[in-house]
């Protein structure tokens, strides 16, 4: 139902998420934002079970901010990703596991851009590109085919558009619009919301 995608370039990370908040067969909201800002240069994209997503993502968000308040400097994307994964793992074998799938995208001033893939079984992998949801089955091969480590921003957005085109063509569910954001050394930038041509 829900779809997340991230593409890492040489000095940026491009992320996109669909905008549908669904409840059984109904779309309750068409403009729902699934990205959570952890810090000036880190975004957490979160999909999964209804309440767990917001609860878990807000928990991580507030803890990252608390770290900054206590220590005076922000967590790096790698540290934030590992912290998130640790929390997922801790809750995994408790009575209330969080069923969420995550992408964490960030820019570290020292290490550069990073995209981290996490899933509900608390696996963590740093990847050049990643996707979550049923739509991932359709789009990962496009990413495999066309991805290069030295993509420019325009090429990355084109690659993203190709993926969304494929979703519109073959995916059984209607995902009319996608929020798109780009993270680079300047911070987080909102790009134009991509809508399906069918409108």
């Amino acid at each position: 139902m829900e779809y997340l995608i991230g593409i890492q370039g040489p000095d940026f990370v491009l992320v996109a998420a669909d905008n549908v908040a669904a409840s059984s067969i109904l779309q309750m909201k068409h403009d729902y934002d699934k990205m959570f800002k952890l810090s000036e240069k880190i975004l957490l994209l979160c999909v999964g079970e209804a309440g767990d997503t917001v609860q878990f993502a807000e928990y991580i968000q507030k803890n990252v901010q608390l770290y900054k308040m206590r220590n005076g400097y922000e967590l790096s994307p790698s540290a934030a990703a590992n912290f998130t994964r640790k929390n997922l793992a801790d809750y995994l074998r408790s009575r209330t596991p969080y069923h969420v799938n995550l992408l964490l995208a960030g820019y570290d001033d020292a290490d550069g851009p990073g995209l981290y893939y996490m899933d509900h079984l608390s696996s963590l992998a740093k990847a050049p590109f990643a996707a979550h949801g049923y739509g991932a089955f359709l789009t990962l091969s496009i990413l495999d085919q066309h991805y290069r480590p030295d993509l420019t921003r325009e090429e990355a957005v084109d690659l993203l558009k190709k993926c969304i085109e494929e979703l519109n063509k073959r995916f059984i569910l209607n995902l009319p619009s996608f929020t798109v954001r780009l993270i680079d050394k300047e911070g987080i930038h909102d790009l134009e919301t991509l809508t399906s041509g069918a409108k």
Partner: protein
Amino acid sequence: MALQDLCKCRDNFLDSFTTFGKKTGCNSVIPFPDRTSWFNFYTPVAGYLDESPIQFGQIRPVQNSSDIFSQDSVAPSLSSPTNLPLSSSQSVPLPFPMSHGTTTLAFMFQGGVLAAADTRSSCSGLVACPASQKILPIHSHLVGTTSGTSADCALWKRILARELRLYQLRHGRRLSTRGAAKLLSYMLHPFKGTELCVAATLCGWDGGEDDGRRDHVGAKIDCREMSGLGKPVDTSVEEASQAETKTSSSTNLRKSESFSGPSLIYVCSDGTRLQGTLFSVGSGSPYAYSILDQGVQWGLTLQEATAVAREAVYRATHRDAYSGNCVDVYHISSKGWTRRSREDLKEEYYREKRRQEKREKQERDFVCVKDLKQTKME
């Protein structure tokens, strides 16, 4: 908590059920450990995972009175509930299957928020109550529609009302609708995965500071609404340009998220919390959505909005077996909530039938007259 201190009952409750809590070994993360002790809110959610499968679903006796019960497990029944706190009912099979049939809807428009709901409480195939109230006022400027299990909804609405009142007394201002929604969501979170089912839309009007200024500022807002601008700004009236921005920021002393105007948030016991301008909840909601999506716009007058809401509930009750009987319409504006008198939809059905018959008769007459004219001319 103020009430607890007043009643001096806190200690008794704490003692009686901490022992019970230890017995089942349930050790959950409760956001409000103190105040929830009043209602035995320790999480029953997966207490049964600790029990041996043989004793699954059977009542555990309290440890104090264990002499008689200790060895045997009591068969699952409601025959001896007296020494057990309410929340232990999770391990008891429900006495009858609960059903969640309803149609409730709420939407924002230039005149505030409109909420409508049917009045049928069903229980599987039985209409348990044809005149129940599904829209419950929480305070003067906040109303909640309820869907799910009626008892759960009624209880949680009261708890929310209590918490909001306490907040108001402690902080001197009303909690915003968003805050109320977040509060409700976090209170329901420990019960995720249990049979508790509450799906509510909180419809409210967030005002400015809670003082005498309210009335005359409210009047100014009404003038703004007449001119059909976007969401009105509550405070500094001089800054007219601010009214044009969709996210009406207010120049309150409280910075960051202060907002005034209508607010509509959907909260569900599974953890969903969505802010929006149009929601419909319940088994009849798809039918209502299709009517609302066509008819709801920002610029509706109160009459038109009420008509759309009534129509949507009527169509949903026509098609959905679990919705029916009457319709309640509530309107929330800067002055608070007002309630339209309850209307029986059966009448609406007959009225529509008569209208349709009259229309068909007119068409037939028209055709006859046309034929007559043609034959005359020939």
